[in-house]
């Protein structure tokens, strides 16, 4: 994980921390340089670059994470604060994992009916790092083996770094990339009723780059961006996705997460059945996450060791 510029809610579990801190200290210090909610060796890796000694100032505003006594310097006094705040690393092993089916081609739309399943997230209910388990249908545009653009609609359970709250959401997300902040949008909504629901996304035409998202055939979200103007994807995917290895993939062996009526569109044309072949379903680890093709337009996924 790269250097993150944000600092946030640091776990104030150390009994010693109150000896060093006050409200202002929590705002300025905390030790969580990389903003992953843990004060650990990853953060300590930035210590040398920030340590200036008494009266030495802060070489980088982010070094305020180490300025425990708010004297605008990082010195041995702050090192004491860092040691007291040290929590160790997150129990969650970050790295997105997938169980999915796909169809290659000039994709401009993707849809499926997906059965809602719950999934436990890493360290729930006390953990405060990023976590998520989602199921979605979407279009990707791969360039050089990496997804440069995508659009997807789905549901899942999610936890944002710094909070313990886990919630169900429906969401639509588009990256029109690759670089500008305005290339990206996400919209999400509270609550996912139980049962089977249809998720559909499609480019309206080649003219404007307008993505439309539908939930149970009802308009859910829309977004227009020139990055998708006269551009198609390189595949349509129907996927289960987790953020951490310890997050549970949606579904269990006894109650699998079903994808049915999988369809896609090419070149802004009409939706057609996916005709998923045996070789077009895959899992990142067959010992961890199961996937089974049920037919030309259906497959199941589940967590083998929930």
């Amino acid at each position, binding site marked *: *994980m790269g250097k*993150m*510029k*944000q*600092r*946030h*809610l640091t*776990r*104030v*579990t150390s009994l010693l921390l109150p000896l060093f801190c006050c*409200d*202002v200290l*929590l*705002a*300025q210090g905390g030790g969580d340089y990389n*903003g992953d*909610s843990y004060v650990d060796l990853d953060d300590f890796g930035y210590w040398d670059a920030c340590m200036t000694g008494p009266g030495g100032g802060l070489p980088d*505003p982010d070094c*305020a994470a180490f300025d425990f006594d708010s004297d605008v310097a990082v010195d041995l006094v702050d090192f004491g604060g860092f040691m007291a705040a040290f929590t160790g690393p997150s129990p969650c092993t*970050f790295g997105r994992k997938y169980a999915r089916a796909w169809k290659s081609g000039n994709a401009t739309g993707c849809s499926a009916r997906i059965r809602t399943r719950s999934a436990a997230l890493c360290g729930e209910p*006390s953990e*405060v*790092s*990023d976590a*998520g388990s989602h199921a979605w249908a979407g279009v990707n545009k791969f360039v050089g083996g*990496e*997804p440069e653009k995508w659009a997807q609609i789905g549901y899942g359970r999610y*936890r*944002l*770094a*710094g*909070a313990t*709250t886990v*919630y169900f*959401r429906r969401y639509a997300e588009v*990256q029109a*990339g690759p*670089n*500008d*902040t*305005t*290339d*990206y*949008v*996400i*919209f*999400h*909504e*509270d609550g996912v009723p139980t049962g089977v629901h249809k998720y559909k996304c499609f480019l*309206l*035409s080649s003219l*404007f*780059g307008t993505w439309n998202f539908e939930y149970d055939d009802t*308009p859910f*979200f*829309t*977004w*227009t961006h*020139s990055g998708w103007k006269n551009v198609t994807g390189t595949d349509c995917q129907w996927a289960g996705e987790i*953020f951490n290895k310890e997050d549970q993939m949606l579904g269990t062996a006894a109650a699998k997460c079903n994808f049915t009526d999988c369809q896609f569109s090419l070149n802004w044309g009409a939706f057609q059945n996916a005709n998923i072949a045996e070789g077009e379903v895959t899992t990142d680890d067959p010992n961890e996450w199961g996937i089974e093709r049920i037919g030309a337009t259906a497959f199941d996924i589940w967590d083998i060791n929930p």
Partner: protein
Amino acid sequence: MKATAHELMRRMAVIVLVTIGLSSAAAAQEPTFADSRLAEVMAQSLDRSQWDIQREQEAIARARALVDASGRFDSKATARLVVLSGDNTPFLSDQIIERPIWHVVLGDWNLKLKSAPPGAEDLYLRTFDVFVDPQGGQLLKIVSRWPKGVARIPREPGAKSVTQQLRRAGHERYHAFPDEAPRITFLEALDAMTKGGENPLAAKQIVGQYVVWSMMGRKPRPMWVISLRGVPALGASYPGVAVNARDHFRSIVDPQTGKWVCGFSTPQPQTTEEPEIEKPPQ
């Protein structure tokens, strides 16, 4: 007669503002203030008896009731009339700028949220600027000041660009400032945001508005619209998505039920020229 006087003063204000060249600072989420004398001049020329909020203490009481009715601000709140020369509220910025409005400062407090996990505390000592319409008492905007010594994130663009972004993303619209008061306070709305996974305690800046809101054909309704800025980036590792596209989030909270409704990454900082919205076929 009142309307005529108000309109006259409004036009004068525009002339003065253009003359002193303050209108260029509109591209920010924080409102920009015009010359402080202007508010006094305009206020003296208007008939305060027509205002619902006539005095400083009334403005403070109103702001307090909207933000948090617990009374914690009694000793630190101040109020004055101001004129804003710039504001980036989408759709409604014209109703905020270039007229006298109450500016209430609720200073130096840490958020206390019932929904916060055990041990979690506000990371910042916060001062809120609350803007209230003197004539109807409507809340126009609540903005927390950026914490001192903390690196800023990119600013939001100006009202025109934000309006375009919202139209483009879900046909979102702010219709008006509601006449009816919200059933839940701003602080209670912040509490509700945690149900949507958001963490106000970690936000470097909080911007709140209470507006009549709609999107995607939903019936316009009063809603709390609250942006958390400078939060941990959504998705700790997100290949291909700029961190500054994910370090803020804007939530919609139902002021009647206290339920978190939905959230957006819009508006994004910076703007690029974008096409008009494509209309679906009839």
